């Protein structure tokens, strides 16, 4: 439920897998279906009683309502597992054990299964039992000190990087285990956590901190270590990022920007000088960028392909960004309830595999009938009996 497990399912479906989502009838299915405000900023309520957050985490899937607390419901789930290649869950271990679907039990029914478990803090250790989510992953992994200066409070990141990162790692781990199974014939369990994901997606910063033992101070954009690796507001209030790491970028930059005088300035002769005199140089560049709107600077800097720079966009700018569209990072589908709808596409392109077409997230239990007949060969009468008994929904 929520995001980490479900998005891993979306990624596998993007790669062509048939994903069946088991949902609990007594709670109305995945809690995300009814959650209007998750981190509190945006209302996820959509037309038709649907929910945007649930939708994006459940494209392409089929939903089967099964009461896992009832023995017959659990048995139906196990019969689906017997025919499955992958079992994916991000429920907490006590909940999983409560319905008898831990790895040992599942493996007993299907020894080739890839059992993929996502949790918050990792299954071992003092906090292995505790509940949590993306936010606790951000906090625990050091991520919240990433943006801002030493004077700022820590920041929460609204993109949910620990949940998304966890989903990416689950999908990566599952694909790897499928490959290993292809080569050895054996299934296995793989485990991923929000904390581990939060750490992994800071690999660079964390690696340098552990290796050097040096502090990793937060950055104040007024005193950057390298003023050509910094962002500047332009005359129209829009921001431009300079992202240049090499010493030779300096000369090209100054010439294009008509700041040739700086090339003669003793203080800024090399990387070390520009680092030590960053405040002064930053003030000069701040004032200079204020003299023209961003699109002018973009045109000027584009004349030298060796310079890296970029406009600072907001999330809502992406759907109109021609680079984004040209690479199919965002694409359109026809949604039965919303009509023409933009969706975010699988981020990798394969030359030989077609792109999977996104299908809408399922209504709760929409495929109970279809899946139980097609996959398990049940008759309509049997299914109706299960539904009447509260085993399926």
């Amino acid at each position: 439920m929520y995001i980490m497990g479900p998005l891993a399912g979306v990624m596998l479906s993007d790669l062509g897998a048939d994903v069946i989502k088991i949902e609990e009838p007594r709670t109305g299915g995945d809690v995300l279906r009814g959650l209007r405000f998750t981190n509190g900023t945006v209302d996820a309520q959509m037309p038709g009683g649907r929910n945007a957050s649930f939708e994006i985490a459940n494209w392409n899937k089929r939903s089967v309502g099964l009461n896992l607390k009832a023995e017959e419901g659990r048995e139906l789930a196990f019969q689906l597992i017997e025919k499955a290649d992958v079992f994916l869950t991000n429920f907490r271990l006590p909940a999983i054990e409560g319905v008898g679907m831990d790895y040992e039990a599942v493996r007993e029914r299907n020894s080739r299964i890839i059992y993929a478990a996502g949790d918050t803090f990792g299954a071992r250790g003092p906090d292995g039992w505790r509940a949590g989510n993306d936010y606790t992953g951000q906090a625990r992994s050091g991520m919240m000190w990433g943006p801002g200066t030493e004077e700022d409070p820590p920041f929460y990141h609204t993109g949910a990087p620990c949940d998304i990162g966890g989903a990416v790692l689950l999908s990566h781990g599952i694909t790897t285990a499928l490959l290993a199974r292809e080569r050895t014939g054996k299934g296995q369990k793989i485990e991923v956590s929000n904390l581990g994901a939060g750490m992994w997606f800071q690999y660079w910063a964390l690696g340098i901190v552990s290796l050097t033992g040096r502090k990793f101070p937060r950055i104040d954009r007024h005193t950057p270590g390298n003023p050509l690796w910094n962002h500047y507001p332009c005359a129209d209030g829009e921001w431009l990022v300079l992202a240049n790491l090499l010493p030779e970028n300096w000369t090209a930059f100054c010439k294009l920007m008509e700041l040739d005088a700086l090339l003669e300035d003793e203080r800024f002769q090399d990387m070390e000088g520009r680092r030590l005199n960053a405040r002064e140089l930053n003030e000069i560049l701040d004032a200079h960028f204020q003299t023209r709107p961003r699109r002018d600077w973009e045109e000027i800097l584009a004349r030298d392909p060796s310079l890296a720079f970029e406009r600072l966009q907001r999330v809502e700018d992406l759907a109109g960004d021609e680079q984004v569209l040209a690479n199919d990072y965002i694409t359109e589908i026809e949604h039965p309830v919303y009509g023409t709808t933009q969706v975010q596409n699988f981020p990798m392109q394969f030359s030989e595999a077609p792109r999977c077409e996104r299908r809408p997230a399922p209504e709760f239990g929409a495929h109970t009938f279809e899946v139980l007949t097609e996959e398990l060969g049940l008759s309509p009468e049997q299914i109706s009996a299960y539904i009447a008994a509260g085993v399926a929904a």
Partner: protein
Amino acid sequence: MNAPLEGIKVVEWSMYATGPLCGVMLGDLGADVIRIEDPQRGGDPTRNMRYVAGITDCQMPGDRNAFFEVMNWSKRSVSLNLKHPQGHEVALQLLDRADVFILNIRPPVVKKLGLDYETLRERNPKLIYATASAYGERGPQGQRSGNDYTGQARSGLMFGAGSDTDPPFYHLAGFPDMTGGTLLSHAVVSALYARERTGVGQKVEMSNLGAAMWIQYWAISNQLLVGGPWPRQDRKRANQPLFNHYQCADGEWIVLATIRDEKWPIFCRLVRLEHLLEDDRFKTVEDRKEHAADLVAILEEHLSTKPRDEWEQILSSDRAMEFTRVQRLADLQHDPQVIANEYIGEIDHPVYGPTKVQNYPVRFSESRVKPRTAAPDLGEHNFGVLTEELNYSPEQIAELVSAGALG
């Protein structure tokens, strides 16, 4: 069980972070990773890059570099001059035998050196050719250079933290590069799996921009559906005050991360704020959203009365309460939870001695993950690779060196 990629041969021609991290991950999974580096430029630029974002010195003892080291664990380095015909020929021989080729070099450079996909596929149809670009290979910026910072800017990531009155923020972690390396590694494994089933190699593409968008999937995909601006969040007026972070009496921060309505009474009882349960301003999620500033102020004051340790103990008494401490990166190697799950491990490094390394983040119950070894010196494995992989004689190697094809 062996490592999943045991016996897989990877050739990596890449710099900085995205391509190299992909190589590290494939190496962790058991692949043999050979880096091609340009001897004329002293190899990967990060070998000599002391300040990147400019804040922390990456210089290490033995004239080594921390940035380069963490991005190149366990690899072998061959210093080949690709502009020299004989150097180029050696590269082609290595690629003829390879399963995977990773590169994050701009397409015009790749084409000029004749290492483009069409050329290599002709020679080795089973090759997985994996590219990382800055903006994706199509579109108006398809040929342009860029990096983690441009990925952060273009993708909206820099407005993800802070409130509307804050400037945009650069995120130190390197999200686009790290996500890019991880997704590229995912794509390679997926393509190897597809090859196992179909016998066909292919090209897989991934970009910094695409990766930076994917790691914000929740925000971006939600915004595409609900429309309108995606607001930044001010913690003083967090719409869900129980999904917010607070400073405790000792100056340390704690995160409350509860989403579901039923946690409200549990929380109030645990922290002895029962009277809030009677307060009409805070009855439902909607009420608490409407009076968020009031409630945040009350919680701020209350949580500042005890040090963080005490709050952690109090909140721990309910198993379903979501909360945790806000740590710094340097805290992680001492965190018992991190150690118990082996997210950070230790290796014996030939130059540094016992050294902490961040392990591959997925735990496999059966597959072995390969232990890390030190990053290679430039050209350290010229002799080993050319003799073992390509059966060159010492005389032939010496000739390549004197011709300037091998550095």
